[in-house]
């Protein structure tokens, strides 16, 4: 029931796509096997072990704002996907692709991010640029 509510909210907030995803945390009961994409405004970006955490506000079509928290892998893992300690700042408008948790709460695993300037960060096929703050190739 709760997961249905989350997916319904995500639909209202503007799902851009929803496709199956191969599990990153193998066998984990934490996440569903679906992903969806949503637009939001960054409120904080925690560059930390064991996981980086991205908070963003997502406004639904009914005007309600819901805070989503996206979990990314550790800095040394997502560095090669383009993420950096200064990839986001509060107020940034971004598009994120998430794999939501199974219990229906507004939490999810961060799959990919598209910044306002079109820069893609993350591990969707074909994605993963060097990101902000990166040294020259």
């Amino acid at each position, binding site marked *: 029931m709760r997961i249905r509510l989350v997916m319904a909210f995500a639909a209202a907030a503007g799902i851009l796509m929803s496709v199956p995803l191969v599990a*990153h*945390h*193998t*066998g*984990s*009961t*934490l996440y569903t096997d679906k992903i969806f994409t949503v637009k939001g405004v960054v409120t904080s970006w*925690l560059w*930390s*072990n*064991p*996981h980086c*955490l991205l908070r963003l506000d997502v406004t639904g079509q009914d005007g309600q704002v819901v805070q989503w*928290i996206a*979990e990314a*892998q*550790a*800095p*040394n*893992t997502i*560095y*090669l996907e383009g993420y950096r300690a200064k990839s986001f700042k509060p107020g940034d408008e971004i598009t994120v692709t998430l794999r939501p*948790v199974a*219990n229906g*709460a507004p*939490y999810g695993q961060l799959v990919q991010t598209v910044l306002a300037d079109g820069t893609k960060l993350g591990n969707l096929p074909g994605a993963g640029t060097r990101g902000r703050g990166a*040294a020259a190739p």
Partner: protein
Amino acid sequence: MLHRFLILVVGLLGAALLFPADPFAQKPSTPTWPDPVPNRPPIAEKDKKPAPRRNLSGMWGARAGNRQATNQSAGVQLKPNDGKPENQLPYTPHGLELYKSHRPLEGADAVPPARTNDPRAQCEPLGMPRHNHYDLGIQIFQDDYKLAMLYQYDNRWRIIWTDGRSLPTLVDGGVEVDGQFREPRWFGYSVGKWLDDYTLEVRTVGTMPEERVWLDNTGRPISDQLRVTETFRRLDYDSMEWSETIEDPKVYTRPWQTMKMPLTLQDPRIDLMTRYCSPSEIDAYNKIYGNAASGK
């Protein structure tokens, strides 16, 4: 005179062949900070150079971009914990009981973060050999007596003695050295022996008991009766194969191979990213995400 000159030239050429130039040698005027993660691609066949004799020194990394290779999150490399029949392990009744008591974050029997009892979630040391199965960024230094292996995860290190000393005798609850009991240790007691100029075999005993350490992220158990045999085989200048077999009669009915990991020599200038296990950072993660995401 000419004869001496020719000898000198031939000698220099020979030395150049025996000791190839450092491929990472930098221009003195342009020191840099490379990306702080191992990310060197495999070396093309035409660029391969011979391995140095009895030398494993260097920064080694698993294949970039392959998370299962770099931190074996799904279980040890050769036996991922995916429920498939071919990856079932030969547990003893005690071993199976231990496995069922573990609540891992990864693998076929994974639980949400709030329910785990993985020692890693408490920032306990991973110990030997689990450190071999997690976040592979490894620096090896060696001298005439030993190798030091530095692990990126939690900035840990272990010593492998290569000076010919014997492996301690495994006894109940620890090891015996020259008739004296010594306590178990997180990385145990390791000795290495060169099987040939390019292959180092390392044996380890005296690791921590089953209530303190796991084999991998998926909760596979090990005990203090564990014997680990690793083989470091340098294939060429830039490539090494790292194999590991474990024997633990308390937990498994027979020895089995856990990994055969291809490693690539990395840029020696890499200053690896911090990957400490910080209790306060884990606490913050659980408060912000882990507990709520788990439904706690």
